[in-house]
């Protein structure tokens, strides 16, 4: 074989087990990257074939048709049309599900007509007997002019046959099945053919009928295509005719090869549907699942989080003792190690949330939630599909905002994007946790509910409520023209596959940690620098304090801590904190909290780390961050700095403020303008400031 590896693309409807097949073929070799210029995940892996060679498998986004309705789906079209591109496949595997073969074959006939070598994998054949399905494979192969492989990807049945078919890809028949020109309008298609000579007729037709131009065609071709695009009504009409003809063809084919005895099936689907979408039980079950989810995030995650916490503080202490003195000594032990620790500690919570979302999606339950919630969400200007981003937003707004892509209408989607950052993401948790621990006593209410837990629940409720209320307002205010079309497949219920969920959780958690980790690491280095360098007064701190304390008879320890706090006050970051102090003192904060607020605009979770850096720079005190915060005193009043009014005001501020660069960046990318992220930053910032001001003023 040549040195160039075989490129294989997996294409198929959602819920056909395409991902299971991908996982079986590639296993641990899979990697997630990005398509150039857009943020759609590109999943690739290597598959070892039986003859010793290997193939690169790309799992393209699931789609019902080659005509895309979303950004993710448009990747399929772009990849399959660009025959000069690096991603252009040598072979396409269309994955179909045996029970829904009719609809799945629509996509197959479209792909087959592109004249790329194509094989058809019919998956979930282990269901055939139970569902009373019989299939004449040999006949279907000869009619569809293709190699067909039957699999049950989850049970690993048929995987070897897929591999064998991949190695024999050169034997594939590349003749198209269907000729659009004859039946629809011969004269019109003749004109298309003669105008766009570089492409096959079907490819030209696809290029003409897309709303947006594909990225790779020349200006000259775009010009010709634009001429055909003018008569949109005709294009629509012909697209409809094409779909009808394709279905007619498929029906005839299946009449000869496929039969299903509906009386045979034990109908699990309808029984479960009756319960899960019941007008009372449906909502009760959904609420219970949400409660279970949040409960687990706190309960299951707390043990590993404690270990991670201890590990990083030990590591920091160890590095202080064992690294050679110098600039890097401080940078490592006071900047980088706490910085990395600050992100690693989130992994358990994030992973558990992703695990729940993955299970809900795998089982098919998520579609039922969309079905249950659509009408309710619509009153607030969103769609049933907005529920998924709002739930994922409790892990992290970044993947949540990416998950808004399958919301059809632009207005629904925009509102969902704008309000998702209100949901309590896991980055707010450490801030909430430490402040709650400082200001709320440990008692129990009615002997059962922990008071601190209830406050945390209330903050979650506040997050959802503010998301919903702002959506309601935005819905009234925003003048966005958008055609909305809602169609949600209700897939069969399935037991979740451990392998699929494992890969899904690993992949998403990794993406989060690497993405957020980079920012947090950079911020902690910058912070460390700003805190360990400063004005002339900073440089001469030892001398100034020594002069001031002449005659005061301070011991060595007190002298050192005087110097350290003087240094912090005159470091660059101290100066910045002092500058904003007048603006934040009405909220009950001092310049040290001001520093934490400034750095939190990069990412909220930096708050705790920053305070711990601020209070620990130069101090050898081994107390925990919580003890240090509790010991802080407001010099004006003599009261504790983190007392009840100031703490509540901070909680409210963090609930509302848009403090996350990562989210702003993703909103900019998804809305293709700076207008909306700036709107979020300013709007949520003002809301946070005003609400914190009111809170502090009332409670003070």
């Amino acid at each position, binding site marked *: 074989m040549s040195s160039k590896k075989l490129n294989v693309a997996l294409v198929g409807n959602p819920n056909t087990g395409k991902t299971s097949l991908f996982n079986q073929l590639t296993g641990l070799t899979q990697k997630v990257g990005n398509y150039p210029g857009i943020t759609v995940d590109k999943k690739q892996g290597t598959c070892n074939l039986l003859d010793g060679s290997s193939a690169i498998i790309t799992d393209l986004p699931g789609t019902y048709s080659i*005509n895309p309705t979303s950004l993710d789906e448009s990747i399929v079209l772009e990849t399959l049309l660009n025959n000069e591109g690096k991603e252009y496949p040598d072979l396409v595997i269309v994955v179909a599900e045996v029970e829904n073969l009719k609809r799945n074959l629509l996509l197959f006939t479209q792909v087959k007509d592109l004249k790329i070598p194509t094989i058809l994998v019919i998956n979930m054949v282990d269901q055939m007997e139970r569902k009373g399905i019989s299939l004449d494979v040999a006949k279907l192969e000869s009619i569809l002019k293709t190699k067909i492989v039957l699999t049950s990807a989850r049970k690993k049945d048929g995987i070897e046959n897929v591999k064998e078919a991949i190695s024999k890809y050169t034997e594939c028949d590349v003749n198209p099945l269907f000729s659009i020109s004859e039946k629809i309008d011969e004269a019109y298609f003749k004109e298309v053919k003669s105008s766009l000579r570089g492409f096959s007729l079907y490819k030209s037709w696809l290029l003409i009928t897309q709303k947006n131009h594909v990225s790779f065609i020349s200006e000259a071709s775009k010009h010709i295509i634009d001429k055909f695009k003018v008569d949109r009504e005709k294009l629509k009409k012909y697209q409809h005719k094409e*779909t009808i003809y394709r279905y007619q063809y498929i029906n005839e084919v299946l009449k000869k090869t496929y039969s299903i005895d509906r009386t045979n099936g034990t109908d699990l689907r309808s029984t479960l549907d009756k319960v899960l979408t019941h007008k009372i039980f449906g909502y009760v079950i959904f609420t219970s699942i949400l409660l279970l989810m949040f409960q687990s995030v706190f309960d299951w995650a707390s043990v590993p989080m404690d270990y991670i916490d201890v590990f990083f503080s030990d590591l920091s202490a160890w590095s202080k003792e064992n690294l050679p003195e110098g600039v890097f000594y401080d940078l490592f032990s006071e900047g980088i190690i706490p910085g990395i620790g600050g992100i690693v500690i989130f992994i358990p919570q994030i992973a558990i949330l992703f695990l729940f979302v993955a299970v809900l999606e795998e089982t098919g339950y998520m579609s039922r939630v969309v*079905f249950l919630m659509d009408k309710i969400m619509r009153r607030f200007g969103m769609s049933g599909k907005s529920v998924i981003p709002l739930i994922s937003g409790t892990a992290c707004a970044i993947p949540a905002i990416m998950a808004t892509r399958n919301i059809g209408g632009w207005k629904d989607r925009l509102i969902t994007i704008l309000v998702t950052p209100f949901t309590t993401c896991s980055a707010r948790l450490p801030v909430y946790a430490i402040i709650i621990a400082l200001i709320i006593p440990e008692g129990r209410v009615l002997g059962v509910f922990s008071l601190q837990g209830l406050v945390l629940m209330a903050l979650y409720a506040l997050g959802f409520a503010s998301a919903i209320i702002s959506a309601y307002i935005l819905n009234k205010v925003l003048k966005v023209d958008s055609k909305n079309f*809602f169609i949600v*497949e209700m897939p069969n219920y399935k037991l979740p596959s451990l392998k699929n969920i494992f890969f899904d959780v690993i992949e998403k958690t990794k993406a989060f940690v690497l993405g957020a980790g980079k920012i947090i690491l950079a911020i902690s280095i910058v912070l460390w620098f700003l805190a360990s360098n400063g004005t002339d007064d900073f440089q001469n701190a030892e001398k100034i304090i020594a002069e001031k304390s002449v005659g005061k008879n301070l011991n060595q320890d007190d002298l050192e801590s005087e110097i350290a706090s003087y240094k912090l006050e005159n470091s660059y970051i101290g100066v910045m904190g002092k500058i904003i102090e007048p603006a934040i003192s009405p909220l009950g904060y001092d310049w040290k909290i001001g520093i934490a607020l400034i750095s939190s605009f990069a990412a909220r979770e930096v708050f705790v780390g920053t305070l711990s850096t601020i209070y620990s720079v130069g101090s050898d005190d081994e107390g925990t961050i919580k003890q240090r915060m509790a010991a802080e005193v407001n010099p004006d009043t003599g009261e504790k700095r983190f007392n009840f009014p100031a703490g509540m005001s901070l909680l409210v501020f963090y609930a509302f403020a848009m403090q996350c660069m990562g989210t702003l960046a993703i909103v900019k990318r998804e809305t293709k303008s700076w207008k909306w992220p700036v709107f979020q930053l300013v709007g949520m910032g003002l809301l946070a400031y005003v609400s914190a001001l009111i809170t502090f003023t009332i409670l003070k």
Partner: protein
Amino acid sequence: MIHTVANLQRGEKGIIEELSFDEIPLALMEMGCIPGKEVTLIQFSPLKDPLYIDVNGSHFAIRRETAERIILVKRLCDEL
């Protein structure tokens, strides 16, 4: 009265006569909603919207406003 998917009873079937949209969504046809095909209304959402249907073996949910535009062949009893 025009007979549409929106006025089917739960479990009732009908045959699609035409799709009466200003601009028929291609995705709807690609999911299998094509004149001549049989539709079964499987379930209403608790608030009567969206509707969960089975067309031609393909199960999906659409909103009432869409369902109202999927016109069905008249029922026999309507004509009598």
